[in-house]
């Protein structure tokens, strides 16, 4: 044990002395958090909208105003030219074109219904669906409002209230919607717990891969191999400081997330750190595995970047796991990052307890045991 601590102390000194590594540990995570959380967002607001108004009545103007007032849409222009609207769509200036037909108000008054055409630029995939969703909700609310203005006959009885009087024999379903866990639909609250995982992963894997590759490159690994330390002791001493650093960085990131973005922390932080402690073992072991397969620091970095790139993209960090194709979802079960992202979000955003995250936690433990054993064994083979 004392030997391990000695070597661990040497490692800590190395890290503290090397300015680049220190910057990697202290500055990069914070910058990453600040930039990524702001940049990695699929938030949809201010959709540039072109309104083609063939009707030019108070009803059609009202519709335009409702769209603008909702905050979801920014009205670029309102004209009666479909060609101009089409140009705006092709140029990319407009994302949505709303076409209000002639006799819009007239048919609303006479027949009680009128069509409105919504053409959306679906280049950006599912964002189009969300734009349509918002537009649909605004149209529904506006038609309820218009019903009172244009065909007020029914409302004479229940005057003064916004609800029609009961007992008139018109069946309807009143739907209320509620979004749990992120009622304000703040994308940053969703991203911070995920980015924290990316941060811990990057530090853990990159540093451990580089660290051992450097000893190899410098030839000092040979020297360490002739010391009385056993392989397991050597690896433990190498990884211990990095493990502590990873947890430290998680704390730093959490603090920044709280101070800058005011992210919710509904669950137990102790649980989160416990999960992180297990997860870091996996991240470090993967770094170690990489370092056993390469000869230089440059290769270590290249391979790490390649591996992490795929791990992070498949973790559900940026895009939801549920949106992946079914077989990809099955493959992603083999990705430790995925499980920690799940835990981090469940604990921080949803306030989940130990019982709720037990499954991913057990899987992480399994990963830790397997990857550490593999790393130690591979290390044996390479050096004996």
């Amino acid at each position, binding site marked *: 044990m004392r030997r391990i601590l000695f070597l661990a102390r040497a490692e800590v000194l190395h890290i503290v002395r090397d300015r680049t590594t220190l910057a990697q540990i202290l500055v990069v995570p914070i910058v990453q958090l600040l930039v990524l959380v702001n940049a990695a967002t699929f938030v949809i607001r201010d959709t540039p909208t072109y309104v083609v108004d063939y009707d030019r009545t108070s009803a059609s103007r009202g519709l335009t105003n409702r769209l603008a007032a909702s905050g979801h849409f920014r009205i670029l222009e309102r004209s009666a030219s479909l060609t101009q609207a089409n140009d705006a769509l092709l140029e990319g200036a407009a994302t949505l074109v709303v076409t209000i037909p002639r006799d819009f108000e007239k048919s609303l008054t006479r027949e009680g219904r009128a069509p409105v055409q919504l053409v959306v630029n679906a280049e950006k*995939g599912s964002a189009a669906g969300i734009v349509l969703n918002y537009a649909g909700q605004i149209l529904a609310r506006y038609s309820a409002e218009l019903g009172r203005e244009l065909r007020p006959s029914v409302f004479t009885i229940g005057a003064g209230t916004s609800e029609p009087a009961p007992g008139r024999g018109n069946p309807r379903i009143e739907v209320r919607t509620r979004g749990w866990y992120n009622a304000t639909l703040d994308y940053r609250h969703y991203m911070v717990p995920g980015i924290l995982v990316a941060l811990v992963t990057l530090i853990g894997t990159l540093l451990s891969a580089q660290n051992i590759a450097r000893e190899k490159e410098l030839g000092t690994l040979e020297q360490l191999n002739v010391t009385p330390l056993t392989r397991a002791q050597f690896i433990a001493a190498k990884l211990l400081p990095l493990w502590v650093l990873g947890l430290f960085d998680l704390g730093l990131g959490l603090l920044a997330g709280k101070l800058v973005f005011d992210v919710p922390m509904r669950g137990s932080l102790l649980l989160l750190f416990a999960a992180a402690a297990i997860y870091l073992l996996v991240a470090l072991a993967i770094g170690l595995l990489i370092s056993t397969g390469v000869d230089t*620091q440059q290769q270590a970095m290249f391979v790490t970047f390649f591996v992490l790139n795929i791990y992070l993209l498949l973790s559900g960090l940026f895009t939801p796991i549920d949106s992946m194709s079914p077989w990809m979802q099955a493959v992603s079960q083999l990705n430790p990052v995925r499980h920690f992202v799940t835990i981090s979000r469940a604990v921080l955003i949803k306030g989940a307890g130990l019982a709720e995250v037990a499954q991913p936690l057990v899987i992480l433990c399994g990963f830790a045991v397997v990857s550490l054993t593999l790393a130690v064994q591979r290390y044996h083979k390479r050096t004996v």
Partner: protein
Amino acid sequence: MTALWGLLRKEALHILRDRRTLAVLLLLPVLQVVIFGYAIRTDVEDVRLAIVDPAPDFATLRLRGRLTAAHVFRVITVLRETGPLERLFQTGAVQAALVFEPGFADDLGRGLPARLLVITDTTEPNTGVTIQGHVLSVVQSVMREMPPRAGGVQIVPEARLRFNPTAESKNLFVPGLMAFVLTIISCLMTAITLTREKETGTMEALLVSPLRPWQIIVGKVAPYLLVGFASVIGVIVKARLVFDVPLRGSVPLLLAEGVLFILVSLALGVLISARTDSQRVAMTAALLGTMLPTMILSGFIFPVESMPRVLQYLSNVVPAKWFVIIARGIMLKGVGLAYLWQETLVLFGMALVLLGAAARSFHERLE
């Protein structure tokens, strides 16, 4: 010219000999296409739904039947009370819940509003809102079948999705992927190969050889250009064959814009190598300075218009942003230079400035 030929051959041999790097160069685009095609999606399908129906009656059963028939939903569980919902949401077992009030059919029959609560997990806001929309549209279609409320008016939205009618996210990612692959190969590899000559001291040998400076650069980067071009064509072919991503515009124009973008990335790579002395620093600079911005700030994965203003301005200096706009325009919208001349001009300007700067910094080293 024979000297240049010799350098080209030497460089090609280098690439072919370094198996590990070559594997990464060739494997990365293939893997990325698969990953982006199957994994990086934001489509919402197969929503896990919980139903809370304290007193099932014909009206609630009808609505439930319609939800199941919609094929978007998978009913995970039917509960009597809302108590267990919290836990189901926390473990992620369900994404949405539909809560009926008791006496649903009775209320409907008596003309009272029948209340229905839709709870969605909005941890990821867009998925949450989309699920909400799916549920609401089913409820609305059921309501439409009921006799209309006298006096009410209905604005009926007719939606049309342009350029990507099925709104599939894979179509969106392929153009970005091309930018990403080109950046890796032309910028990162160029920076590394040039600094390697410096680090090993062989750059001096090249400089005193009869080769002119431009010949050295051409000799060093041309093979990578070829690899880059080949993998871009590979990405397009794979995207067409496996994922059926549309290619509506002109292919020669797309390839020409590709060459323009490669020139910009190459110039960046040469610039990085001129400013750094070790492969390690060059690599870090290339990763942080070009690849991360290409991934994050180019609109490749995350839409630029969603970002805060500062980052939107910053994204203007990322060449990949312009290339992504151009490639999407050509592939998805089928537009030509008439609509894309501004973006092309920006890329062209960047290419001129960066190539000039790269040539100058290379000359400075000579003196």
